[in-house]
């Protein structure tokens, strides 16, 4: 398919038309991010006046200076790291051994255990019973509650199980001949072989933890414990009503819009840093696990 000259004229028009449309879609995906970055680097006055379209007007870092001077910003940033790292490790600790056991054909009651996982993908009790349960377990307003309460996701377990099932049993047999127990088989043979699948699931966990908002908002009352997303939401919602803030507005180079944009940029940056490294895995990971069955 490499040689364009092989194509008829109609094919060439089709190919170029197609590239053009994909290009337009891609630019429309990219533009809002560029726009927000430009707002965050403009002065409050220019942003307010609607003069920012593509590039910063009257370049200034004032909004960033305001953001990094807020202790709550750093506190919530740190909290997000705690929830992301703790939550992802917790998820892997539950999912990897569990999925390995589920993938072994000799596991007694295997159909039942698998059904137990799959059922949660189709039916869950919903908001209120989940909330009441967290409260009854004493997990409101606690770091641990957020970390453990969302550790397992049925889809991730099935993805991991399917991957383990795809590994030829000769690997396990060889390791067992050498006297390895189940834990050694999993840790020394299966985990190294399953790296792409583990990376995929880790990526899903990291992303959902980093972005987690609703339950953090509902379960955490203590503002010292809230993650970045809740802080961001709170800031967007209250900044424009903040009397102190609007009083300083006319003497400062920042505004509600530029500060909001600056916090948005700050919270996207870590995602952008980690994204290229893990992106190469998830295409493969989804094809491996998702389409099967």
């Amino acid at each position, binding site marked *: 398919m490499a040689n364009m000259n092989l194509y008829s004229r109609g094919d060439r028009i089709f190919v170029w038309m197609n*590239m053009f449309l994909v290009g337009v879609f891609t630019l429309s995906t990219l533009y809002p991010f560029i726009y927000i970055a430009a707002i965050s680097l403009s002065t409050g006055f220019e942003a307010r*006046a*609607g003069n920012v379209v593509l590039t910063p007007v009257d370049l200034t870092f004032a909004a960033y200076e305001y953001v990094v001077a807020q202790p709550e910003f750093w506190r919530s940033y740190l909290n997000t790291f705690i929830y992301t790292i703790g939550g992802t490790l917790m998820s892997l600790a539950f999912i990897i051994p569990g999925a390995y056991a589920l993938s072994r054909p000799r596991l007694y009651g295997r159909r039942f255990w698998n059904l137990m996982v799959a059922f949660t993908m189709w039916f869950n009790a*919903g908001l209120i019973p989940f*909330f009441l349960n967290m409260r009854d377990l004493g997990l409101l307003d606690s770091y641990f509650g957020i970390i453990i309460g969302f550790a397992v996701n049925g889809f991730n377990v099935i993805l991991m199980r399917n991957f383990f099932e795809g590994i030829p049993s000769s690997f396990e047999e060889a390791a067992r001949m050498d006297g390895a127990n189940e834990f050694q088989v999993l840790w020394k043979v299966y985990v190294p072989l399953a790296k792409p699948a583990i990376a995929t699931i880790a990526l899903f966990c990291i992303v959902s933890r980093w972005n987690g908002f609703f339950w953090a908002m509902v379960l955490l009352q203590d503002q010292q414990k809230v993650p970045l997303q809740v802080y*961001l939401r709170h800031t967007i919602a209250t900044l424009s009503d903040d009397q102190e803030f609007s009083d300083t507005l006319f003497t400062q180079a920042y505004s509600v819009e530029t500060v909001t944009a600056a916090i948005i940029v700050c919270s996207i940056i870590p995602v952008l840093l980690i994204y290229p490294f893990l992106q190469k895995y998830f295409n493969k990971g989804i094809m491996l696990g*998702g389409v099967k069955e």
Partner: protein
Amino acid sequence: MTDSAGHKSRFEQPSRVERIVDTLKRDWQLYLMLAPLVIWLLLFLYKPMYGLQVAFKDYSIFRGVANSPWIGFEHFETLFGNDQFLRALRNTVIISFWTLLIGFPVPILLALMFNEIINHTFKKWTQTIVYLPHFISSVIIAGIVITAFSPSAGIVNTVIGWFGFEPVYFLTRAEWFRPIFIGTGIWQEAGFQSIVYLAAIAGVSPTLYESAVVDGASRWQMMWKITIPSIMPTIIIMLIIRIGNILEVSFEMIILLYQPATYETADVVNTFIYRQGIQAGQYDFAAAAGLFNAVIAFVLVISANALSRRYSNTSLW
């Protein structure tokens, strides 16, 4: 009956209990690995299902789930006499319907378009970029939407101004909520959802295309006659999944974008449950709304699956 080596004869089947004891002895390590997962599921997903009974109870925090008195279907009766609930139900169906109608074909179209790109670098870069919004939190997306649609500073009103129109307070206008919400959803997820179809396209046998080339087919014809029919099963499966989730409007985004002025068109069942239950503390009443939602969703997915199995031989189970 035992033979000389002490083994039971094959005519004497071990009892169920003995089999379980044997397998426990042999595979105790596997069960040890499985146990945390099963305990987690029981504690965090199955125990709340038991707690669903509050939908049929006059729930009191002090008495707890088990000891609160039963009241039957009273909450459900109240629910169907509640204008706000009926409005939320109607909004859920309308938003889901349009999201499905407009949002479902877009990722398929995108996947087909990506598949027709020959330039490898261009393909890689565009794909990487359109997946990106999926990984950005709804709070940030909502922040971007609020900024972009703001009446004074927003780019949308700036552009409208270029054409000589008055600025519109989009997010306070009920008639604008749905287009903005649905458009945002497509913008955010269409790219990432195309992965599934790209995976399906990757699985199409190359020999089909080779023989089509020999027959002189154009790229357009190959797309219509080979690619689309080949990924039809995937399309149908995704459609079943989407129909099953039709009442699961992504309420996080709605909570972030709506305000009392737009409840008229924006309030859905899940946001209604959030306000009635968690904010107002009417747990039992809100749980009833949640149960109604879940049962309808369950029925929808089972019916969609059954219809698909009958008419297209493709199904989820």
